[in-house]
C-alpha cells in the first residue's frame, strides 16, 4: 500500500447523497481479475453518454459534459468532496481501486458506509468525516473558486484552506498509523502467528465442531 502523509490538490464536488459503489464502478467492470485499470470507468454511467463495457477504448467514448469530473475546472482533482453515506452498497473493493486509479487520494464527506470505509484505508485512500455545516461551506467554496485546492496533512490531522484557515479532523489511531507508514496488514498480523495458533488450540477443545 502506498503511504499517505500530505497532499495539496484540486477538489472536485460530488453533490449527491448515498453515492453507492454500483455508481462508483458499475458491475460489468467487476469481471476483471486484476486490481488496476479501473480509473477510466470510475462513475462510468454518469461520465459517458454510451453504455460502457470492459475492453472498450474509453478515449473514443462520448463524454457527458455536464458530469463534474468532465469539467475543465476539475481536471487533475485528487480530493473528492461528497455527501452523506458515500460508498454505500456492495462490498466491492473495485470502488476504492477505481477512485485511486483515477487519482483520488482523499474523500471528504459527512459520513461513509462501513465496508467502503475499511476498504479505502486498506488501499491508501484517506477518508475524512466532517460536520455537515463544514461540508456545506466547502461545497460553496468549491463552487465559487475555479481551481479550488485544499492541503491535507494526516500527521497533524488538518485541512488547510487557501486563506490559511484550518479544519481539524479525526481519524482512528490504527488507521492513521497504517496509512502514514504504508503498512501491509497481513504482514502485521503474521507477527502474531503464535497467538493465532494458541487460540485455535484452545478453541478446538471448547468447540471442536468448528474444526472438522
Amino acid at each position, binding site marked *: 500500500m502506498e503511504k499517505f502523509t500530505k497532499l495539496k490538490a484540486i477538489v472536485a464536488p460530488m453533490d449527491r447523497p448515498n453515492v453507492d459503489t454500483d455508481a462508483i464502478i458499475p458491475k460489468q467492470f467487476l469481471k476483471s481479475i486484476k486490481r488496476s485499470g479501473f480509473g477510466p470507468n470510475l462513475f462510468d454511467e454518469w461520465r459517458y453518454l454510451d453504455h460502457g463495457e470492459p475492453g472498450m477504448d474509453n478515449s473514443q467514448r462520448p463524454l457527458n459534459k455536464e458530469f463534474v469530473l468532465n469539467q475543465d475546472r476539475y481536471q487533475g482533482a485528487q480530493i473528492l468532496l461528497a455527501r452523506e453515506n458515500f460508498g454505500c452498497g456492495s462490498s*466491492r473493493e473495485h470502488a476504492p481501486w477505481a477512485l485511486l486509479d483515477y487519482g483520488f487520494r482523499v474523500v471528504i464527506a459527512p459520513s461513509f458506509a462501513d465496508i467502503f470505509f475499511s476498504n479505502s484505508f486498506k488501499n491508501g485512500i484517506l477518508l475524512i468525516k466532517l460536520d455537515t455545516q463544514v461540508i456545506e461551506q466547502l461545497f460553496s467554496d468549491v463552487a465559487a473558486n475555479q481551481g479550488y485546492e485544499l492541503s491535507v496533512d494526516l500527521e497533524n490531522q488538518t485541512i488547510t484552506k487557501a486563506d490559511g484557515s484550518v479544519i481539524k479532523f479525526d481519524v482512528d489511531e490504527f488507521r492513521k498509523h497504517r496509512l502514514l507508514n504504508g503498512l501491509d496488514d497481513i504482514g502485521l498480523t503474521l507477527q502474531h502467528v503464535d497467538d493465532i495458533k494458541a487460540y485455535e488450540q484452545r478453541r478446538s477443545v471448547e468447540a471442536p465442531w*468448528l474444526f472438522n
Partner: protein
Amino acid sequence: MAGKTLYEKIWDQHVVRDNGDGTALLYIDRQLVHEVTSPQAFEGLRLADRKLWRVDANLATPDHNVPTTDRSKGIEDPISRLQVETLDQNCSDFGITEFKMDDIRQGIVHVIGPEQGATLPGMTVVCGDSHTSTHGAFGALAHGIGTSEVEHVMATQCLVQAKSKTMLVSVDGEVNAGITAKDIVLAIIGEIGTAGGTGYAIEFGGDAIRALSMEGRMTVCNMAIEAGARAGMVAVDQKTIDFVKGRPYSPKDEQWQQAVKAWNELHSDSDAQFDTSVNIDAATIKPQVTWGTSPEMVVGVDNKVPDPDNETDDVKREGMIAALNYMGLTANTPMNEIEVDKVFIGSCTNSRIEDIRAAAEVAKGRKVASNIKLAMVVPGSGLIKQQAEQEGLDKILTEAGFEWREPGCSMCLAMNADRLEPGERCASTSNRNFEGRQGQGGRTHLVSPAMAAAAAIKGHFVDVTTL
C-alpha cells in the same frame, strides 16, 4: 455487571488478541468465496508466496457470472467465463472445496452456506460480498469484506476489527396475514434509513422476528447492509437448531450434543445493554414497494409516490427529485397504478424454497399479464431448484407464464446476461434499487416474492393480500 448482547458473546469468543489500539484480531471460522471478489486475493497470496492458513474453513462457488439458461453451452461472455475459470483454477491450486457450475450444490453463496450446514450458530462468517449479513440469521456474526480482507483471512484466518456498536431492532406483535419477511425488513429500512445502522451490528428481535422461519430471518438479515449495518443477527432458538440438523457440514453425534448446548446460549442476556434500540409495531406493516433509487425510498403498496415538495431537507429533496426523474415517476401517483415490464424473483434475499412457494401460490391457476415482457424465477441453488421441481412448483410457474431458470445471482446485479434494458421497469425480489443496478437505465422496485408474482399477474403493483 450487565449481561452481554449476542454480538458481544460471539465477539468475545473470537478475540485472538487485543491489539491495544481500539482493534482486535478476530478469528474467522468460515469464509465463503465466489468468483468476483477473490481473484485479486489469490493473486496477492501468490505474489507474497503465502498459503491458506486453514483450507477447510473456505467454501467456494461461482454465482455472479453464471448463466441461468442452458448450462451445457458454458458461459458465452469471454470475460465472465475467464473469471469463473479463474475461480476453478484457484480453488484447485489452493485445495478449496468448490461447487462448480455443473454441480447440483452450486448456487448463490449466501444460499448454499446455510443449506450445506457450512454456516453454523456462533460462527464468524465472512465473504467478499456485502450480503454476507444473511448468515446472521443463525446467531452467527457474519459480514461482508473487501478483497484485501478476503486475502487477509485466507492468509491468517483472522481479521483486524474494531468492535461495532450494538442496535436492537424489535418488531413487536404480529404481522397481518400475507405480510412477509421482505415487507418487515423494507419497513425497517424505511424507518431507520439506509445509513441508520452504519457503525452498528443489528440484532433483530421481537415476536414478529421470532415467528419467522429461518428463510424469513435470512431475508431480514440479508438486508441489514441496506440499513447500513455490516452485520444483522437473530438469536438462536429451536427453529435454528432444527434447520441446521443433519446438513452435510453440521456436527454429528457427540459433537452435535455439545454444539447444541453451546448454541442455546446464543441470545442476548435479558439485562444486556444495547447502544440504541428501535421498536416497530408489526401490525402497522403493509406490503412494501420501493419507489426510488435507495432502499429507504419505500412505501406501503396502498400509498402514493411521495412528493418532494413536502420534504423540508434540501439535500433529501434534491435526492427525491433525482430519484423520481431516474425512475420516470410522478409524485402522488398511486403505487398500485405503476405498470411493470419485467419481474425478477430470485437473489440471495428471496430465492429459497419458501420464496418460490409464495410466488407459486400467487401464480397458481393464473396467467402473467400481457404487458409483461419477462417474468423469471431463479432459484438460489441447484438443490432448491430440485426441491421446487419435486413439489411441482416449476410447473405451476411455467404454466402461468414464468420462466424457470438455473441458479445464480442473475438479474439482482446483472453481471450475467439477465438484465433490464434502459427505461424498463422491474418488480424485483432483490435487495438494491440503485441506478443501473439491474442494467443501465433500468428501474427497480423492490418487493416480496408474493408481491412480485402479483405484479406479474396484474401487470402493475397490487396489494397481494387483496388478490
